[in-house]
């Protein structure tokens, strides 16, 4: 079933829509949440919370232009980070340390990924060109290390760092323009 049909079912409050969404996207959401949380039980809770979220807020998603997959990935990612934050900072895993750092109160620049409106973020990412778009997604959605991103994209780590710096600045400007964050 395509996304448009699923969104329409969800808008009609048909539970078949939720079932079809779970069947289609459970895999990718589990993968994203698992990278952040690492615990199967937490992952399942988080993924089901994301589907509850889409059920509750389906009216904000346009069946013609909205990306259900993107919406769900952003939702599960934000929920996983919040769940990670609730756990505290006792992470032995360096990746989890980085995630906790991203969600910290002091790091305003990174806060945008946690609290900014998912649709706005999606819109800005869509307008970015390659490889900036992919760097942002790999860094903040898949939580890949700079070296991992560089290897995947065939770039040097320094190039990735520089592009990331520029892209983050552009993203911040776009969010300020849209009134999501204050300058």
């Amino acid at each position, binding site marked *: 079933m395509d*996304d448009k049909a699923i969104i329409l079912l969800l808008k009609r409050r048909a*539970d078949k829509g939720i079932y079809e969404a*779970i069947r289609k996207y459970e895999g990718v959401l589990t993968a994203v949440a698992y990278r952040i949380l690492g615990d199967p039980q937490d992952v399942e809770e988080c993924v*089901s*919370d994301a589907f*509850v979220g889409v059920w509750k807020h389906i009216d904000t998603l346009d069946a*013609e232009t909205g*990306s259900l997959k993107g919406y769900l990935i952003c939702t599960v990612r934000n929920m996983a980070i919040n769940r990670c934050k609730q756990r505290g900072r006792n992470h032995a895993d360096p990746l989890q340390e980085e995630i906790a750092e991203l969600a910290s109160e002091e790091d305003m620049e990174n806060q945008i990924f946690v609290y900014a409106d998912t649709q706005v973020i999606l819109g800005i990412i869509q307008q970015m060109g390659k490889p900036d778009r992919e760097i942002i*997604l790999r860094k903040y959605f898949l939580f890949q290390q700079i070296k991992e991103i560089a290897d995947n994209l065939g770039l040097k780590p320094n190039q990735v760092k520089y592009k990331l710096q520029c892209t983050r600045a552009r993203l911040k400007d776009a969010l300020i323009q849209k009134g999501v964050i204050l300058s």
Partner: protein
Amino acid sequence: MKQHSEFKLFEEITVPEYSSPSKRVEKIYAMTMKKMQLPSSRRFGGSKLLLIAAIAAAGLLAAAGYFTASDAFRSYLKEKGAAGETAALSSMSPNIIIIAYFYSANIVNIIPVLAIAIASFRI
């Protein structure tokens, strides 16, 4: 519908193999429905509903087969001249009737019995 190619890269990440995808889908669906306070109606949807229908059909066929078998056994006893034992048939246990069922070589009618056994095992 607009293509969202930027999310294609998510397809390259693999799902950890801590449980089978179908089990995860069922579990997450049940959890989601519980959180939304909706009945998990699809839990018994699809293949499970078919399985239940198959069990019911097999039950009916088995009942029909059971009576056919007892008739076959009666006929067999009559042929063998053991007419006196026919009267005692009604008081026999179901197991004896099933043995007679096999004995009368009514193999086709055993299918529903096997269907029930397999369905019960799967449930």
